[in-house]
């Protein structure tokens, strides 16, 4: 819809009709502390009845509010259509910490899961950071990131404004004091998701599949355990976020089903990067990037034989999990427990 269209709508349609199509416009008036506007009138007529004093406090007059309302509709009237769509991401190599050139370049297509491995301090998070800011030779690594084979202009960076990359890391927490349901509803609302109720339910179920310890719709997000939080964040990213690139920095040891989590994210036509020290995760990807001393030294395809090892690794992982729970619950470890 073009901007002119919204101008006409705002001039001619009664507010109630506009609200029916764009429920978000209620927020516009709440933000200006206009609580009892007459919805049966057109905006300009309705504004005539609003306390001038309140409007003035916001440094506005009737005409300015009108213009802002049009801009508001313009900004929110067609958000759902603007999810950034991409096909591929290319990393043009820079240099390692000693200034030696790293790998030339590598390209990742939508639907791929790429793991990043390397010793502590090697530069895994740095690579994720380069991708997040769409580095242009302007970060310490000198890397450049291309989208669909092209440099991203500053203008396009802004247009995509955070819609390109979704991030998940161990330091992230929930800070809103809301229940899981309220939280998901709020996120769905800001995304203008059409089948909001459906997405909320789906997201909730996915999250509970990922974590051993179940939680409820009315649990407060701030009271979720580390594992539950991580599970909810992953499910939320998979079900609600439209960002085509997902960056995950070390989600291990959170007591969630990591392989399932990765599969869930990959199903959604995204490019997923996972920085990890966890063999199970590292082999769950299609390829893995090896980083040494700040530079990418190789990109390894996960072979069939490696994939066959995954089931055994999962068993080892389950064993470790069992030992951990046993210790946590004050139990005593014996040799039998080490057997599958």
């Amino acid at each position, binding site marked *: 819809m073009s901007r002119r269209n919204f101008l006409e709508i705002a001039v001619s349609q009664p507010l109630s009709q506009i609200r029916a199509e764009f429920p978000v416009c209620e927020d516009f008036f709440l933000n200006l502390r206009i609580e009892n506007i007459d919805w049966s009138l057109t905006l300009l007529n309705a504004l005539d009845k609003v306390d001038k004093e309140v409007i003035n406090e916001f*440094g506005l007059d009737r005409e300015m509010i009108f213009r802002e309302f049009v*801009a508001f509709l313009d900004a929110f009237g067609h958000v759902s259509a603007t999810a950034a769509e991409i096909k591929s991401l290319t990393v043009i190599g820079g240099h390692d910490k000693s200034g030696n050139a790293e790998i030339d370049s590598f390209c990742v297509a939508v639907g791929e899961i790429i793991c990043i491995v390397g010793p502590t301090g090697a530069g895994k998070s740095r690579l994720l950071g380069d991708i997040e800011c769409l580095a242009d030779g302007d970060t310490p690594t000198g890397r450049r990131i291309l989208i669909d084979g092209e440099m991203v202009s*500053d203008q396009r960076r802004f247009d995509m404004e955070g819609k390109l990359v979704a991030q998940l890391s161990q330091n*992230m927490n929930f*800070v*809103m004091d809301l229940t899981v349901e309220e939280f998901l509803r709020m996120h769905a609302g*800001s995304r203008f998701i059409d089948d909001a109720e459906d997405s909320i339910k789906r997201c909730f179920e996915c999250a509970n599949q990922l974590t051993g310890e179940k939680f409820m719709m009315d649990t407060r997000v701030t009271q979720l355990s580390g594992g539950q939080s991580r599970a909810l964040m992953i499910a*939320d990213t998979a079900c609600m976020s439209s960002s085509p690139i997902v960056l995950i920095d070390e989600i291990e040891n959170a007591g969630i089903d990591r392989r399932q989590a990765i599969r869930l994210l990959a199903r959604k036509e995204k490019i997923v990067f996972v920085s990890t020290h966890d063999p199970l995760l590292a082999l769950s990807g299609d390829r893995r990037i090896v980083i040494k001393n700040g530079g990418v030294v190789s990109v390894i395809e996960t072979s069939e034989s490696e994939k066959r090892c995954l089931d055994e690794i999962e068993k080892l992982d389950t064993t470790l999990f069992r030992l951990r729970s046993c210790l946590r619950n004050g139990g005593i470890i014996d040799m039998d427990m080490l057997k599958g």
Partner: protein
Amino acid sequence: MKLITFSGPPSSGKTSVILQSIDALEVPVTEIGVVKFDCLTSFDQGRYQSKGVKVVTGFSGKLCPDHFFVSNIEAAVEWGVKSGFKILITESAGLCNRCSPYIQGILSVCVIDNLAGVNTPRKIGPMLKMADIVVVTRGDVVSQAEREVFAFNIRQVNTGARIIFVNGITGQGALLLAKNLWHAKEVDGLHEQRLRFTTPAAVCSYCTGEMRIGSEYQLGTMKKMEFKTD
């Protein structure tokens, strides 16, 4: 000289963001000046100085910080021009959520903290609403969903601003901000320029030192709340 005004609620990360952008700007620190407008105390002076940035701090004390800003900004710019700076940055703390030390045509940046709660953007008022660029700090410690909702709520009150997430500790995002700061307009003075928004109205008896409570002591601009009982 380029002039840039930064504002934002107390402790939202203004100084860290400014310092990170100074690092990211390709300008020698000796050619950047900072004027810090604060209320009672400020601990930022040292942080700027240890970077080699020249800084002048002013305290509004018992005055409205906005009134204080507007009555000193012209001299601040003169100081910047005389010192031969390429860039002059002002930093002011918005205390009443209505503060809005922005001047027409001068690049205005509002810094807010993602930890402050998702509805904060809808409560801040002109400081956020009138800004050209909104910088969000501490986005790295909240969930992706909360970052998105926060940005959505900023967009609600300021449909035109550029929203940039900057990590005040690692500097992630500062480069993009610096690129934008570089577009700030050149000025050589501010005489006859206009504010973007009126400063809070004042001049009541309490402005001039009255301390007693009671309507007989209240003169000048007053605003009364309504309390109903059923």
